[in-house]
């Protein structure tokens, strides 16, 4: 239908130029918003860049599950410390007591499901009361205080980490 031989080539070059210009714009915008120094980064993820050498070194601690009021759902809390020079992210969680685990952040008394939670380089990801948390759904049974729940945390770079989380009282909040 359209005149291919010349037209298509011209279109491609035009499109490529436009795309190139837009890419520069995009990079400029992203780097200013995230103040990321990594040029090869895709939206501040800092992957595969030479200057961000090292790798994430993760340690999970303080995991617990408050005993839920019913067998409908439960929450889960833990802390991930990253002593490495590279960021990682928690991409999914599985457990022995629930069919599904969602990751949530809490914004203005509303919880929102997120695709992943970041673990910054030399930083901490905290899942704590009133903030980020795991939501355990499709419970196989109601976790009761004294029992232990096993979580398998899946990270983008560090692979899987298994943690045991004691079931605590419904209003348990660890001392800080």
């Amino acid at each position: 239908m359209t005149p291919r031989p010349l037209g298509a080539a011209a279109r491609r070059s035009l499109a490529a130029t436009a795309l190139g210009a837009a890419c520069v714009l995009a990079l400029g915008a992203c780097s200013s918003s995230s103040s990321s120094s990594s040029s090869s980064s895709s939206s501040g993820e800092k992957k595969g860049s030479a200057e961000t050498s090292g790798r994430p070194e993760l340690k999970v601690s303080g995991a617990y599950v408050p005993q839920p009021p019913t067998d409908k759902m439960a929450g889960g809390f833990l802390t991930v410390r990253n002593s490495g020079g590279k960021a990682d992210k928690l991409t999914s969680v599985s457990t022995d007591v629930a069919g599904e685990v969602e990751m949530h952040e809490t914004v203005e008394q509303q919880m929102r499901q997120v695709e992943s939670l970041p673990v910054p380089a030399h930083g901490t990801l905290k899942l704590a009361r009133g903030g980020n948390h795991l939501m355990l759904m499709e419970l196989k049974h109601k976790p009761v205080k004294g029992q232990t729940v096993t979580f398998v945390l899946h990270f983008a770079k560090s692979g899987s980490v298994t943690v045991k989380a004691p079931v605590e009282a419904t209003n348990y909040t660890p001392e800080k």
Partner: protein
Amino acid sequence: MRTTRTVPAAAALVAAAALALTGCGTDAGGKAADKPATVEKQEKGGTVLDQPFDKPDLTLTDTRGDKYDFIEETKGHPTLLYFGYTNCPDVCPLTMSNIAVAKSKLSKEEQKKLRVVFVTTDPERDTPEELGKWLRGQDPSFIGLTGDFDTIQAGARSLGVSVEPSYKKKNGDIVSTHGAQVLAFSPKDDKAHVLYTEGNTDPKILDGELPQIIKGENP
């Protein structure tokens, strides 16, 4: 010909710009979640209100399916009121459980006087049965109310509690809001003189202050 040629170029630009936006959008989202949201430790306890709140006109349905008039039923009783929902893994059960634990430490006499009322912000999912099941898991004496959302929201608003209707996201998730504070009404004048913000209902605070609330005194 020239005009048709510029079309794909413009389309590419738009597409690239959209990509750029998406890239930055996820970046910003990631940054937002980056900040660990932790509950600040506060030792200040309940906040005494300069302008006490009247009891809201909440005529709703209780967990037995009966009509419940909040003003009438709690008249002359020290009353704690909280707005939340049962599909809530963190703050709602924490708040109600903190109250349950503090209540269990009161004398029998004090326990008998106290009314604890949980009003759902998610009436569609929180039927009387669901509410009843959830509250019995905390304390069987707790009163659970459900009903018309507009009534609930108006009642909450009159107490400075902001709640939004539940909505369904494209992925099927239902997003609900819980209130950020527990209101404590005095048995003397049936007004709320004290409120407890999130993170201020832990046993160290409530255990000490609840006996005063029951007497109608400010902590």
